[in-house]
């Protein structure tokens, strides 16, 4: 049945979308939440089941169930092509997992016009998944822009303050970047080889891979294409939209923004920018290293002086994603694989960190460090969970982050001293920051706000346990994930000649 009628990428794409439409029609807030929870669980289930078909034993069915292509704009060489390869598998799994976690954790809070809010979130999930499964550059761009527009509405409509222009700033920033991406694609387009008879050129990613791009074209296209990805990741100096947007967004949006959406940028680097433009990539590698290092160190220091927990997590996530970017852009097989693994870790860890902050604010009503303290006494469960996340963030053994961080270091050791120094500084700053939070927020005297705090809901506890499980699985058995994208990494390395 499956494969002949509908494939996994389609299911992952359409389940949230259709459920979102259903949610939009519901009136009661309770029904909205139940249906959207069912939707995210269903999507997560499909993502997990799809992994079965990624096993070597099922290789024969793999192509059948995981790729689909429809005619669309065929005369310009574009088609609605979706697929799940190793990289996409990991990223879609992460997306559905994080959405499920976020929906569970925030199920207790209420939002204005819940049906519109949750429908938007589900559409958002659909669009983000679309970015990860699109195998046609134009379709990729489509989903990318839809993600931006939906984020604009989610931030602006349900954000902290309506008067400020942060959602607007976010959109203009990102839209400009995305249009540069489009310009890059259009510059490459006349050099692509046709894959269908109907058009002289093609937009499918596979066509881009087999087309020869000259060095000059590569440099231009790489510069244009890297900008939107760096804006999204975000890397210094394109990061200015991020902390404000995170801090002012409603929690579910901020969580997903920090953990899944920024990963779209890294995904773009891995999928397109690095393998397509090997010559240009080599040329600009040092610049990228420097930008990443500046980004890591700069955001690490700024995170240290934050008082607002939302801003703090936002800056911490800039540091963390910078480390992953260093690995991804290393041009070295070990560090690249580790960087991709760290990207997955980033999604889970930062989501976990956001969840802690959300629960703290939900319980105490405060989110500034100065008005918090002694949570460990009041809510030991939360503290235990926080320490798991802390271990993961700083990269202690048994967490996936340890494996990733170690291998990024190992891979970069022979490549660049600057990157190495930046990396170590980044680890130290993160450690300092996390210990600082632990000291001020979880230990110390019990503050007034904390003394009044209630207790966590069952949903929240389940979500937290799931995060711990994910962290441990990634830490103890990293091959489960790295095995999925090993072939893809080898391909990229072969192209970049590293």
């Amino acid at each position, binding site marked *: 049945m499956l494969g002949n009628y509908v494939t996994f990428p389609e299911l992952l794409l359409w389940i949230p979308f259709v459920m979102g439409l259903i949610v939009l029609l519901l009136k009661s807030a309770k029904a909205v939440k139940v249906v959207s929870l069912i939707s995210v669980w269903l999507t997560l289930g499909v993502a997990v089941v799809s992994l079965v078909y990624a096993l070597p034993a099922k290789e024969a069915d793999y192509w059948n169930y995981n790729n689909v292509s429809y005619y669309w*704009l065929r*005369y*310009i060489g574009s088609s609605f092509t979706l697929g799940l390869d190793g990289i996409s598998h990991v990223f879609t799994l992460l997306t559905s997992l994080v959405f499920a976690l976020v929906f569970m954790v925030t199920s207790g809070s209420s939002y204005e016009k819940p049906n519109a809010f949750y429908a938007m979130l589900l559409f958002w999930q659909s669009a983000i998944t679309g970015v990860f499964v699109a195998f046609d550059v*134009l379709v990729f*761009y*489509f989903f990318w*822009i*839809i993600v931006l*527009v939906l984020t*604009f*509405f989610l931030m*602006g*409509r349900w954000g902290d303050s*309506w008067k400020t*222009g942060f*959602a*607007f700033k976010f*959109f*203009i920033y990102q*839209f*400009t970047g995305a*249009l*540069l991406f*489009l*310009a890059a694609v*259009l*510059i490459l*387009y*006349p050099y692509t080889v046709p894959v269908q008879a109907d058009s002289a*050129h093609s937009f499918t990613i596979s066509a881009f891979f087999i087309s020869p791009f000259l060095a000059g074209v590569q440099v*231009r296209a790489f510069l*244009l294409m890297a900008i939107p990805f760096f804006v999204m990741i975000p890397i210094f100096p394109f990061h200015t939209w991020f902390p404000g947007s995170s801090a002012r967004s409603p929690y579910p949006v901020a969580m997903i923004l920090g953990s899944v959406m920024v990963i779209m940028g890294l995904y773009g680097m891995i999928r397109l920018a690095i393998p397509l433009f090997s010559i240009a990539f080599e040329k600009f590698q040092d610049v990228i290293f420097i930008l990443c290092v500046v980004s890591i160190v700069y955001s690490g220091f700024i995170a240290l002086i934050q008082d607002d927990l939302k801003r703090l997590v936002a800056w911490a996530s800039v540091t963390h994603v910078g480390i992953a970017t260093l690995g991804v852009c290393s041009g070295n097989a070990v560090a690249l694989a580790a960087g991709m693994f760290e990207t997955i870790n980033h999604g889970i860890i930062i989501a976990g960190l956001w969840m802690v902050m959300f629960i703290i604010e939900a319980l105490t009503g405060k989110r500034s460090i100065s008005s918090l303290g002694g949570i460990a006494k009041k809510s030991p469960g939360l503290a235990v969970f926080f320490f798991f996340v802390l271990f993961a963030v700083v990269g202690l053994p048994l967490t996936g982050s340890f494996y990733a961080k170690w291998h990024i270091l190992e891979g970069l050791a022979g490549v660049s001293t600057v990157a190495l120094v930046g990396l170590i500084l980044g680890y130290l700053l993160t450690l300092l920051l996390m210990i600082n939070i632990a000291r001020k927020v979880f230990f110390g005297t019990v503050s007034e706000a904390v003394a009044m705090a209630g207790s966590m809901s069952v949903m929240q506890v389940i979500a937290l346990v799931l995060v711990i499980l994910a962290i441990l699985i990634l830490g103890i058995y990293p091959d489960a994930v790295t095995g999925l994208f090993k072939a893809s990494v080898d391909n990229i390395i072969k192209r970049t000649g590293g």
Partner: protein
Amino acid sequence: MNAIIISGVWGVAMMLGGVLFRRSHTTVFIAIAGMILLLAGNLMEFFSTPLFSFDGFEMLKVSSFGLHFNTIAFFGTLLIFLLNGKDIETLGNHSAEYFSLIFFSLCGVSVATSYNTLLTLFLGIELMVVPLYFLVGSDNRNLKGIEASLKMFLTGAFFSAIILMGIALIYGGNSLGSMYITFISLGKVDVNPMIMTGMVLLLAGMAFKVSAAPFHFWAPDVYDGTPTVVSSFLSAVVQVGAFIAFYKLFSTTFGQIKPQWQTLLVTVAVLSMVIGNVTAIFQQSIKRMLAYAVIAQSGFLLLGLISFSDVGREGVVLFIGSYALGMIGMFAVISRLPDYTIDGFSGLGKLNPGVALFTTIFLLSLTGIPLTAGFLGKLYLLLGLAAGQGWGWLIILASISMAVSAVYYFRIIRAMYFREPVHPVEGVPEMRVSFRWLLGIIAAILILLGLVPDILTSWIYY
């Protein structure tokens, strides 16, 4: 020929009949009936059953390309009649005359899309624009409208003279002594300074008619000053007619000497995009802002003329279709708002969710967001450029100008959804159910074209 005859006759009939049904609401219905007839006649001719035909020394030559754009223009006008028919009726004291002027203008559009000599080009353009001079100033209680009318008339007459002078120079400069656009092309004529001067003058004149920079100065005042329904007609229909005339002229007559005018046209396009988009950001009045948006959009549209490819032609069709529909929708919404600043839109998402949603779709389409026709129009235009190679910088510039346009389009979306209403609820004029449905239909067409562009573009190969 169907469209020319029907629109002309209907215009005359409405003007004469205006005596009979003055001050009654039948005028709108008669006009709508005429519009449907016109549309049907045009479609009949498109599917090769011309009701009327005359030789006329082949001064008019109907092509499917031109007829296709007629259909877009007529459909747009029909939508304007359906959405804002009452507004046209109450422009001033002569309800029937306003409709007949619009029909005359449409007659001009049909001539401008099917001309075969420079003379008929001039006639078409003038026939299209002269009725507008009256329509723009029709609300004689509004001083701004009268000023706009005078401004449009004076500058318009000036540039018409320039077009005429260009035509005269080309006529005198070619050894064949011919005015037929196809004759002068084909490399039969030596390019001499006289023809070149004529071409530059024609380019300037036509750029003025499509309100491209640096000949755009009339547009903001005119769009701002006239009744909203006239701005709608100007932006959606007259622009289309003028641009098609422009496109046809430069792709046939001057197609052979492209290198000579390309630089000039690129300059005009770039200036329009930059000036239009950047100035639009600073406007308080939404109508004025949309006027600058029109300037920017016509700069973008000129890219189709620069690229000159099949994809580019498809892009022109899609772009014009999406742009006309989007502008008609926007101006229709504006005509129902309590004021013409951004405050008018504030809180529309709460007051009238349906209309706010449709307005959002119009704006997304005008910005060029995927899944709307506007995006595909822009994409195809850029693709046409990309195929030519060497236009990388222009593609980047056009992309950035799209990003800049998002600033002012999204400001409206922000006002609608993220702000509280400024005006008391009683101050918001009611929007009829049929009005909302029509807006919904326009939005649906925009999305449909964004998904399946072939339903519009495939006809140009007919």
